[in-house]
């Protein structure tokens, strides 16, 4: 018998900000959606890969270009090394692949699932621990690899139960090409990246003005803001693009559009050249998946041809990640049913009938029926 009042324990019952317990129906729905998505990934021949929940800090360092250091959970091992809970899966997968497949030149396909951790307690209502599942396709620089990513993402979302969604596709190279042609310094490029990815074009224009860029050149720069929903619109932008690097970036998107249409998924995609990521490791095609009912992207991905080189393997790669929690939130708001089988047989036993009840329970469980054996009768 406890000598303390119930209030005494109340402080112990809370979970820290940004993390929570998931149980009952909600958890059943989550597991169901996860398994559906993974099923789609396996259908494309992706192999499950598991990396540790924490790594050496250097795997997520600034040079790698992932989450800023202050948003990482850091701690020390017995030798004083700094360890970090993974904020996203791509750098660990890249490290793992570089380690075990150093000499492999054929394409490699991996999928993963698990928790990612970002220390964002400063902002209200944001998850510190989130469930992510995703794929990485390594050693394939082709447009067909890009298209496979988009098509697989479409199928993952369809399989999860979503029907109304859009995948917005951009190419980081376009932005880099324009910056290079304009001879912008790194600081300006970095601020510009923030403004453009926030669709804050007037701030971008002011910045370019303050850097002494001429009106005509500014206009060309801000053409990045044009919205493109099909190949023809892309072609128009291509004609107006002055530098080779950006033109090549558009050509890649036009090509990609063609292959995606061959998959039959043209209606799910649109193009947006302002799409830039906070992860600096992205080098080419980049995309985000959106649906109603959630304020954030449910999926993000892109090409990271330089990332594996940080781990000693030169391998062009592309991948994407689905935010399972955001996806579930959106599905709930869209009132999309996720049928979960929770039917359970219940057998009540008494002291006298226990043996017979147990026998029945064993038989039912062998048949694959969920069976509860609980005390009943006079109790």
């Amino acid at each position, binding site marked *: 018998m406890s000598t303390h009042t119930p209030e005494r324990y109340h402080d112990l019952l809370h979970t820290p900000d940004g993390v929570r317990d998931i149980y009952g129906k909600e958890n059943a729905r989550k597991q169901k959606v996860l398994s559906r998505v993974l099923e789609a990934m396996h259908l494309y021949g992706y192999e499950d890969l598991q990396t540790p929940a924490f790594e050496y800090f250097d795997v997520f360092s600034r040079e790698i270009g992932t989450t800023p250091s202050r948003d990482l959970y850091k701690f020390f091992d017995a030798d004083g090394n700094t360890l970090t809970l993974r904020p996203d899966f791509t750098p660990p997968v890249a490290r793992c692949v570089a380690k075990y497949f150093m000499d492999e030149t054929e394409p490699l396909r991996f999928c993963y699932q698990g928790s990612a951790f970002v220390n964002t307690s400063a*902002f209200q209502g944001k998850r510190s621990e989130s469930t992510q599942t995703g794929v990485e396709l390594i050693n394939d620089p082709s447009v067909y690899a890009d298209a496979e990513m988009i098509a697989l993402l479409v199928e993952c979302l369809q399989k999860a139960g979503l029907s*109304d969604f*859009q995948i*917005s596709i951009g190419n980081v190279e376009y932005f880099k090409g324009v910056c290079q042609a304009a001879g912008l310094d790194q600081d300006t490029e970095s601020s510009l990246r923030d403004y453009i990815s*926030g*669709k*804050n*074009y*007037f*701030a971008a224009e002011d910045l370019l003005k303050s850097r002494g860029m001429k009106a005509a050149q500014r206009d060309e720069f801000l053409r990045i803001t044009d*919205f493109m*929903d099909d190949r023809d619109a892309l072609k128009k932008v291509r004609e107006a693009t002055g530098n080779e690097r950006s033109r090549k970036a558009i050509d890649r998107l036009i090509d990609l559009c063609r292959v995606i249409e061959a998959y039959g998924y043209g209606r799910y995609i*649109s193009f*947006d050249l302002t799409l830039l990521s906070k992860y600096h490791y992205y080098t080419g095609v980049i995309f*985000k998946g*959106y*649906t*109603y*009912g*959630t*304020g*954030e*992207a449910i999926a993000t991905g892109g090409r990271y041809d330089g990332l594996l080189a940080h781990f000693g393997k030169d391998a062009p790669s592309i991948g994407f990640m689905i935010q399972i929690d955001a996806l579930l939130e959106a599905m709930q708001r869209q009132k999309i049913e996720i049928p979960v089988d929770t039917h359970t047989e219940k057998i009540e036993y008494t002291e006298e009938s226990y043996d017979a009840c147990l026998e029945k329970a064993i038989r039912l469980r062998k048949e694959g029926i969920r069976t509860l054996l609980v005390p009943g009768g006079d109790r």
Partner: protein
Amino acid sequence: MNNTMQPLSGDRSQYLTIALTKGRLADQTMALLEKAGYYCEELENKKSRKLVFTNEEQKLRFFLSKGPDVPTYVEYGAADIGVTGSDIIIEENRRVYEVLDLEFGKCTMCVAGPESARELLKHHERIRVASKYPGIARDYFYNRKHQTVDIIKLNGSVELGPIVELADVIVDIVETGSTLKANRLKVLEEVCPISARMIVNQVSMTMKAQRIREVISRVREVVNSEKHENQL
């Protein structure tokens, strides 16, 4: 009513929801939207107790809320578009697209206090700062002035802070400066210019791309032509 209004194009099956900031900003926003061809008669009835105002014809929905809540509604997609001051947008730091400077509701974010406090801002010594904008105040003192400060969050009448000696200085928006003057306070430093901004939900920008882009480009045209007129 505006007869030059052109019919809206694009998918009309869904409403576009717009969050407005209660008060003068809402009136100015509606005046601007009207010039761009969007209107809401229901909103003009000031006595109405309704919370959500609809224009069935243009499939628009409007609601009024407190300024700091506008970015929240927009971030979570409860509103597709919002209009509020950039002071609030910076302070709330929500994941929204900031797409237009509407060029009204102009004022300046300032550090203000009694003349005697001017000296305190010249050194890196610890001072007390009262503000409705703790985020902006912290960013300014920590990252731009590199001065260590204690920030005290207040919810209104911030000018009281230095007068009753709760704080050495305040960080607040200043429009005409008359409130400061009446209380013998002065603008000591300017932090940044402020004006009304249009913000857009990230998902809506893609999912309702056509309609939202139409709103943005029409409103931008009006803003630019007015700016041009003012310059002449």
